[in-house]
């Protein structure tokens, strides 16, 4: 087994609000391995985007990382100086947001963005050589060469997202954090972009943290999936077993409520209630007030995220060994 590229331990991020302190990420531990696509899913407000920005130490005011550790390639990011962190962001970690306009300089041509990035990574490359490389890269992304001299606003949303991937490639970024990269794209453009991303990921062995609410996108792209609910990680597993047999009742309810165009039938399972207020989260398991399988212990004690069998993590008392009699996962059906 490879060493993880990123190792997050007991991360806590809070936002100060007038109503009180919101713990947006509350004790999350997670590893990201080289060359994997880790999907991070959950509904709005679950803390998935905050986790992504925390990795870059870019949590916005009034948010603050108040606890835990983030190890990147052997270095503790929370111990780096602001200057060291800035260099790391520029050279090793790329971020792709829902709206690429926020990350592209509106006054700079596409070619200049790419050339500048290539030369940041390799200062010894001449301007001319960098231009040649930029043209090759743009071609590889399926953008016509004549668009190189366009400004960001002249490109469509899909093309801008391709440019963002191109910049990450030019940088040879060790980690790409993609936060809802296809959410603003139309469905055909989204499919084109996902095809390209998958191709490049396999070709270059990219490591991607894919943050999204779109369960379909995660199913198509991720190798492993982490599910967040109310600031906690509730389940973590390889993509196929997770979709085949979700263990956490929240994951079960979430997957059952997703429309699937390939399936017969026209009813969706409904999840009742709404996520808790993170200023006053419920005691015990945060999902217990909505959980159809909750029992007394769930309201009292918080279940830890445990590896109940290799590569299968879940935070739920149903899978606790002391709770074997009620355990719906008796282990006999395991290969």
């Amino acid at each position, binding site marked *: 087994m490879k060493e993880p590229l990123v190792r997050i331990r007991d991360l806590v991020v809070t936002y100060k609000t007038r109503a009180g302190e919101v713990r947006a990420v509350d004790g999350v531990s997670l590893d990201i391995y080289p060359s994997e696509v880790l999907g991070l899913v959950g*509904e709005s407000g679950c803390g998935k985007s905050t986790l992504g920005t925390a990795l870059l130490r870019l949590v916005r005011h009034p948010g603050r990382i108040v606890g835990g550790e983030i190890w990147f390639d052997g270095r503790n990011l929370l111990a780096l100086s602001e200057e060291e962190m800035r260099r790391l962001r520029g050279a090793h970690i790329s971020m792709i947001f829902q709206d690429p306009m926020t990350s592209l300089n509106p006054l700079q041509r596409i070619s200049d963005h790419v050339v500048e990035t290539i030369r940041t990574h390799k200062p010894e490359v001449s301007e001319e050589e960098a231009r040649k490389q930029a043209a090759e890269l743009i071609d590889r992304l399926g953008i016509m060469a004549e668009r190189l001299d366009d400004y960001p606003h002249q490109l469509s949303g899909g093309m801008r997202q391709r440019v963002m991937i191109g910049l990450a490639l030019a940088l040879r970024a060790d980690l790409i954090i993609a936060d809802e990269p296809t959410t603003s794209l139309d*469905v*055909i453009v989204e499919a084109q972009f*996902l095809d390209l991303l998958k191709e490049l990921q396999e070709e270059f062995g990219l490591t991607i943290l894919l943050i999204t609410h779109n369960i379909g996108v995660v*199913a*198509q792209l991720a190798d492993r999936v982490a599910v967040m609910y109310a600031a906690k990680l509730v389940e973590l597993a390889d993509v196929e077993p997770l*979709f085949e047999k979700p263990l956490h009742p929240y994951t079960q309810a979430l997957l059952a*409520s997703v429309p699937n*165009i390939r399936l017969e039938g026209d009813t*969706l399972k409904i999840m009742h209630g709404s996520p808790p207020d993170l200023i006053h989260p419920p005691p015990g398991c945060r999902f217990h007030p909505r959980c159809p399988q909750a029992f007394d212990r769930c309201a009292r004690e918080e279940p830890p995220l445990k590896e109940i069998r290799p590569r299968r993590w879940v935070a739920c008392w149903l899978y606790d060994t002391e709770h074997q009699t009620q355990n719906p996962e008796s282990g006999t059906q395991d290969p």
Partner: protein
Amino acid sequence: MSNANLVEVRGLRKWFPVQRSFIERLVTRQREFVRAVDGVDFEIRQGEVFGLAGESGSGKTTTGRLILRLTEPTEGQILFQGVDLASLGEEEMRQMRRHMQAIFQDPYASLNPRMKIGDAIGHSLEIFGIAKGEEKRERVLEMMERVGLTPPSILYEKYPHQLSGGQRQRAVIARALILQPDLVVADEPIAMADVSVRALLLELMRELKEEFNLTYLFITHDLATAKYICNRIAVMYLGKIVEMGPLRKVYQAPLHPYTQALLAAVPVPDPKFRRTQPMPKGEIPSPINPPPGCRFHPRCPVAEPICSQEEPALVEVEPDHHVACHLVKR
């Protein structure tokens, strides 16, 4: 479901003039238009959910606005319960609006931030002189209860910002239904909600439709969601309908290459599924100068010479299933 038509749309066009600068006006005489809706015909049958699907720029939202007469058509006819909407005067149209209501994507934008939820829901009862005071309150509370805004007497006093996104969308639904309309035009009504809330709102809309005998025009970019609510569907591309028919037929055996691509592009929540169909190249071209012939031909994987020369008409290829493609045999 009866076969009577609640709405009939005939040859509907909406061209928006392109804004030009002073210099441009001096240099060229030619005016340019965005052909948002460029000749569509369809009907919405009493009691059905008619879906209008397409990507951004397809003209689906403009079509919805034209039916509500929130914008005036450039050409064409809209008959509502057999009455030509264009023939109505302002007051007659105002009365007609009681029978057609809208639900838009962003509930926050469609609720007055300074009006209490209960007053917002009941506002139209006062406007149309149907109920006021205590009677209005009673009706509003009843409707709030029905759409799941509970406890109604407490939520009645709240302002939009004090509700969750899902509750706000329920309030917008309650407001649309309180006049007991015949037609509800729902434009991406659940697009902003979270996955779990979407399922809930979709189910609510289905229940209310049965209970209040409604007819929906359901406008969406999300074909997976459309599958759970629509009876018939029309797929739009660059201001035109390219395919229209019963949902099952269109989804199981789409005939137009664009419909095929659109359906294949929807991300499937199953990691074992691998899409085999290649995606069409490029993106939707500008609706200012749409391609000649079939508008999809520059991106179409099976286009033939005729496709760039002649515009295909929307023809019925089997009962109730219409398609606009030269290559589909009748």
